[in-house]
């Protein structure tokens, strides 16, 4: 940066215009870019000569942002990324990647049958290999499960940018889910909460398993040639995988794809969060230029219409309900007024009036209402601040001067006076 001679600065420092200072309202409106034409020019005139008022405007700037991603915290004074073309280039590259992921997934879903058959073949090779030494392992191998988990994660990252696409796709495939779920129920009653690891098993495998189950009665002896019969071998030798598979009814149709998204893309998709002074929760995907309203209660209602996902949410809650929690109260409260939001990566907590507290672990696509309770007491006051030092450790302060802390991502809470 070029320096300016000192005598120039001395001259700049001189107060040429004495005039009265603009009041706090005008300075605020100036900083918030609410002033028009002549009024803004008048305040600017004053700021050009008044160091005190410049200090006031600068000091009164809001906190830079709710630090979400480490990338945005780094302040490069004159780094090479300062060139706008590189920033926009990076943004464009990110967008292109997200769009291509979306398009690919769309075609995947359109060719659902084809994908299903391919997946069935993939899945079959594993059970038939393990059929020699049958175990209580579910039909989906751990590596397969992990692969799908990561693809589901990638899916979330992409939905961050294209929520509409995500919702549309869900609706489209929701009916499939219902059918799967019903047929599974008739096959074997789903009882225990599903194994969280297996929850990512894909619908294709599931349908093939059911199919195999039906076929097993028709061809009890079975050959080793076709895919179907190799499934049947699994079924005949070991009923547990089928049982596990049928428990996997609440599957996410999204996981039917094996697309993987790089972590850097996920990082870019992390939204920023804020709460307006009127209590509306908002998020921004473009670093704060545009904000969209987010209503956890509404998205909860949306999810509520989706039986499979609904059950998945409840199952999640049931898992965590081993503590004294009453999670997953699905009481809809569209009029929730938010006062505080805290985000740590994809983990977002939002709280407001009347003890309303929502949590999402996927950047705002699915919300779960959480009611912290400990030793018979429940959080009922207005939540006025949420702080999370890492995804597990957090504390919440309320208007009635209560302090609630958690050290396990909100599973259990402690109340401190």
């Amino acid at each position, binding site marked *: 940066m070029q320096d300016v001679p000192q005598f120039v*600065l001395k001259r700049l420092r001189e107060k040429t215009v004495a005039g009265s200072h603009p009041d706090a*309202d005008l300075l605020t409106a100036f900083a*918030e870019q609410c002033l028009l034409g002549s009024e803004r020019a008048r305040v600017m005139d004053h*700021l050009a000569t008044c160091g005190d008022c410049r200090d006031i405007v*600068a000091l*009164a*700037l809001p906190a830079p942002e709710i630090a979400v991603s480490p990338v945005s915290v780094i302040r490069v004074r004159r780094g090479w990324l300062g060139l706008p073309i590189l920033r926009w280039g990076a943004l464009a590259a990110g967008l292109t990647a997200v769009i291509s992921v979306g398009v690919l997934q769309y075609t995947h879903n359109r060719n659902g049958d084809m994908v299903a058959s391919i997946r069935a073949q993939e899945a079959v090779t594993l059970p038939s290999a393990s059929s020699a030494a049958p175990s209580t392992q579910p039909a989906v191998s751990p590596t397969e499960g992990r692969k799908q988990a990561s693809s589901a994660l990638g899916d979330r990252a992409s939905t961050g940018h294209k929520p509409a696409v995500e919702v549309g796709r869900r609706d489209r495939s929701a009916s499939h889910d219902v059918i799967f779920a019903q047929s599974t129920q008739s096959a074997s009653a789903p009882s225990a909460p599903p194994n969280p690891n297996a929850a990512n098993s894909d619908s294709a495998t599931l349908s093939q398993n059911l199919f195999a189950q039906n076929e097993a009665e028709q061809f009890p002896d079975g050959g080793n040639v076709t895919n179907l019969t190799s499934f049947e071998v699994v079924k005949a030798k070991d009923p547990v995988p089928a049982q596990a598979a049928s428990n996997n009814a609440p599957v996410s149709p999204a996981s039917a794809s094996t697309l993987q998204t790089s972590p850097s893309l996920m990082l870019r998709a992390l939204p920023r969060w804020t709460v307006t002074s009127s209590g509306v929760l908002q998020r921004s995907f473009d670093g704060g230029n545009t904000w969209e309203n987010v209503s956890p209660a509404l998205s909860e209602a949306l999810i509520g219409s989706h039986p499979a996902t609904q059950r998945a949410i409840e199952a999640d809650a049931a898992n965590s309900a081993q503590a004294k929690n009453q999670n997953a109260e699905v009481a809809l409260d569209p009029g929730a007024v938010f006062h505080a939001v805290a985000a740590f990566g994809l983990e977002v907590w939002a709280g407001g009036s009347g003890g309303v507290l929502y949590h999402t672990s996927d950047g705002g696509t699915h919300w779960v209402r959480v009611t912290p309770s400990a030793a018979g007491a429940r959080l009922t006051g207005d939540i006025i601040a949420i702080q999370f030092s890492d995804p597990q450790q957090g504390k919440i302060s309320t208007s009635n001067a209560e302090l609630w802390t958690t050290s396990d991502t909100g599973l259990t809470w402690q109340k401190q006076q």
Partner: protein
Amino acid sequence: MSGLSQPLLFCMGVTKPISVSLQSAVSELLGELQARSECERIGLSRESFAAILCDVADKYLPAACSHSEARTFLLSLRVEELALARACAAGHDAAWEIFLTRYREKLYQSALRIAREDSAARDLADTLYAELYGTTTRGGERISKLASFTGRGSLEGWLRTVLAQEFVNRYRRTRRLVSLDEEGEEGSQFAAPETEAVPSPDSRLESATSRALASLSNQERMVLASYFLDGRTLAEIARMLGVHESTISRKVDKLAKSLRKKILASMMQQGMARRQAEEALEADVRDLRLDIRRTLAQEPAPAPFSDQREAPVEARTQGDPANS
């Protein structure tokens, strides 16, 4: 019809006469603004809300404003927060409850960001609270600082600005005085020989500088002063002006270069050789950074004799229990 005439009557009651165009704009928009502000929920009547609108518009609008100007102005106000602040000022409990839940925590956090130190932040926030509740009595009644909020910007931003004003008034001014004194002493050491050694180019430099500075727009002056005088970061200046950081970065660079060029050109116009002019310009650039840092140091430098000073204090505190 009663909806129209009531606010008009009330506007008449305001201390100063209200222009006709403003009156008509207020009566036209009152229903809409009132619905947006939900003022009755927090204890403000329609009449007092109309009076507040007239009051605010009267403060900022020129007397001879047109109807559409008044309309745009009224629509730009943050009426919900305006109503809340004024209801608090009038002492309505429901309004205070909302205000405290929304802003209490934020206020302390903002104070901490401004003062950067816990005890000063608490002090700052407590002072503001006292003013918000209205401890200053004027003619027997309490005047809350919230009564001066006019809804031009957000209430949250206003609270931060008021905190910053208070901070600058109390803390920065004392520090700035100290640092200016320091600078005065040390600045004279290197400023004096320069002016004595080359008296004639100095006057030409002076006039060239004022000419170059005069050619700047106010925004350019503000950017320059913020960056070089106040030591603000590019990001901070960008947020003050609501533009992108890279815009400011380019602007500062361009300004500093063009300022040099203009001063050089102006000095050469006045008959200085190019080399002479460049030398005059370079004379003190080296000391610049140092000087800015010293002037604007946020924290006072640690006392040079702290070690020696602390020793007797310790001795005294150790000795105290023995004495008592």
